[in-house]
């Protein structure tokens, strides 16, 4: 490098300054609208702020981990409410994330098939619920799942007596346990994690929550279908053709070729799904407000309710941070399980090379055998 050192350093400094100038607006905006509110929320979560004036005013005291202890300790109404919220949301996540991932992948594969006519129509139809406001969909759902609504009318036509969907607090697993003769007695009735008895933990989602689960799958499958379509198109035809030449059936092509190559997208979809489902709020706030019997209370809704309705702002902020912790933990866990995206990308490269090598080897074998035959 022939350049004199001093000039290089000077220009680098000027460049650095210019760089900071260019990013300054973003830093200021992020600082004012994200960093500062987050820091204030951290403070509120360890204070006894009553919602009167500034949380930084002199009358507000530091209370340590009291708010966190109240929600995580499992004692009293506060602890039990949080435990119920975690249970409800856990089942919501357990049902929604796998189902929406599988269904969106299925829809994506179906609408990218060459044989399908009117692809545009189907893609639009499946994507439509995603671009509709969640408020509108929730209201629609309330009508559909009314006691005398369309769903129950349809069930009645099939001689099934539909439940009173949004007013039925019974857990779907709980009904099964009851049929098997179990009840809330003995060890099952003892308060367990977060002050919630084992019997309550194993109730599963309530019938009302099932309606919300169906709604979440209905609305988000379209969004994730779009991600899968993009990924499927990126795979390209030649891979598929190579597999066909190898004699793979449609299922084998999907299972051993397409699905592994979609791994980074599956990772993205599951991560986004986990984050979205743990934060479920608007459907609950509009649809049920936590009813029936608190079986649709979620941590996000509980946080809002603690702050704005019960005026326990510190507790509300503390719930928000616990929820944040849960989401981070879940994301790390599933990253660990699915393996990280970089590793997947490199294996994809290897697979392509492998496929190419096998292809060449086979050509060579075929050439040899034809020569042998000659």
């Amino acid at each position: 490098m022939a350049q004199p050192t001093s000039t290089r350093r000077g220009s680098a400094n000027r460049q650095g300054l210019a760089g900071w100038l260019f990013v300054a607006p973003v830093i200021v905006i992020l600082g004012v609208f994200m960093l500062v509110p987050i820091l204030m929320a951290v403070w509120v979560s360890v204070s006894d702020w009553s919602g009167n004036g500034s949380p930084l005013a002199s009358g507000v005291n530091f209370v340590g981990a009291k708010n966190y202890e109240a929600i995580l300790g499992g004692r009293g109404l506060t602890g039990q409410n949080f435990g119920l919220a975690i249970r409800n949301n856990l089942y919501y996540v357990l049902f929604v994330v796998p189902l929406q991932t599988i269904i969106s992948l299925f829809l994506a594969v179906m609408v990218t098939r060459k044989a399908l006519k009117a692809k545009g129509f189907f893609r639009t139809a499946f994507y439509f619920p995603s671009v509709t406001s969640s408020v509108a969909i929730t209201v629609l759902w309330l009508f559909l799942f009314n006691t005398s609504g369309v769903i129950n009318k349809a069930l009645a036509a099939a001689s099934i007596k539909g439940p009173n969907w949004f007013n039925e607090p019974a857990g779907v697993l709980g009904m099964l346990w009851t049929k098997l003769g179990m009840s809330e007695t003995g060890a099952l009735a003892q308060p367990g994690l977060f002050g919630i008895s084992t019997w309550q933990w194993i109730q599963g989602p309530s019938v009302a929550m099932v309606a919300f689960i169906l709604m979440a799958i209905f609305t988000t499958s379209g969004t994730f279908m779009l991600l899968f379509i993009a990924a499927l198109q990126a795979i390209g035809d030649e891979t598929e053709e190579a597999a066909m030449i190898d004699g793979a059936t449609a299922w084998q092509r999907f299972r051993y070729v397409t699905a592994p190559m979609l791994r980074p997208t599956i990772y993205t979809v599951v991560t986004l799904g986990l984050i979205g489902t743990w934060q479920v709020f608007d459907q609950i706030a509009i649809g049920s407000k936590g009813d029936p019997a608190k079986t649709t209370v979620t941590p996000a809704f509980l946080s809002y309710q603690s702050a704005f309705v019960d005026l326990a702002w510190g507790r509300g902020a503390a719930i928000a941070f616990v929820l944040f912790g849960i989401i981070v933990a879940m994301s790390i866990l599933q990253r660990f399980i699915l393996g990280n995206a970089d590793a997947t990308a490199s294996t994809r490269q290897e697979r392509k090379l492998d496929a190419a090598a096998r292809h060449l080897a086979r050509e060579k074998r075929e050439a040899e055998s034809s020569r042998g035959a000659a």
Partner: protein
Amino acid sequence: MNRPTKAGIAAVALLSSLSLVACGSGFTSTTSAAPSTAAATKSKITVLIGSSGEAETTAVKTAVAAWSTKSGTPAEVQVASDLGQQIAQGFASGSPADIMYVGDQFAAYAKAGNLYDYSAQMTNKADFYPSLVQAFSYKGQLVCAPKDFSTLGLVINTDMWKAAGLTDADIPTTWLQLEAVAKKLTTGGVVGLTYGPEIARLGALMAEAGGGLVDASGAATANSQANIDALTFAKKLETEGVAKNSKDLGAGWGGEAFGKKLAAMVIEGNWISGAMSKDYVGVGWKGVELPAGKAKGTLVFSNCWGVAAKSKNTAGAVDLVNFLTAKDQQLAFGKAFGVIPSIQSAADQFKTDNPNLVPFVNGAAYAQSLPAQPGTKAVIDDLNSKLPGLKTADPKAILDAAQTNLDAALKG
């Protein structure tokens, strides 16, 4: 991606701490500005209300405009879409509305120091019903003038009543009679009695049984024998199939189940008159006082006019509240949207104007209100979440849990 440099981290840290300080100082300057109680300034008064509909909004706007013209102080009425949330936001931001409807969060606001205590300046103080004064007193002081009130009564579908061969002489005055008429009124698609499955309706039965969630000294008595009797009675009616809660009937509230002719009687408040004349015009109805258990009992509900401690014109705000709670104005509100005046001197005129609401006005004499101390709302919500399942639940277990929670809330 490059790693963030130390300078960058320092810049972000500096920036955030600066803005935190800026936020803090911005807030505190408004906090330290003590409300001036001396001379009435002419600074604008904002009134934040949660309206039941067009009629209420128009009536309040007209009244506030009349005061504004009289006093020369500009005033504006804002209708909240979510009153509790908007009030909370106002308090937190340090610039709340000057006057607002305050309901069951009254004590929590008062405890946080959000409400201006204007008891000394209330012109109608001696005229308010004692049960309302008690409901809106914090630490023995009435800090929030009762706006109006409503009580629960038994509302009867007169057509079904006649069809079942019942007359005015059959109007139930005891629980036994209530059960008997409910049985007679239960036919194919109609249940005899309905109510919202919440303590704000079933609490009336507790009051009739001589109970209540708290006793006169303010101690928790949720699992008293009287309360157990009350819920057991409701459970009995539900088990016999002569009563069903409004949720089981697929209705949003008792009035809807009644208006849709799913039930022949409902335990509801006088606000049902608005729904009946607007949404269920063809349904003949009549309100009567609730039947007595051990004694007569019902629940009273009310809102009050809260004046914000941080109002810039508390003198003007108090003057407006006094104007709004005066007899003429309360009677005008009663005429416009069916609420009962909170002052006793307006009762006779109101009864003459609204003969069908007389039983509800009479209820004020023996009504009790639900506890509204800080923290009790969460307890009542929890209790309400269990009442829809009353038919298959153990009333004592429900009330025992409520007792534990209520006791903790009242002591905390």
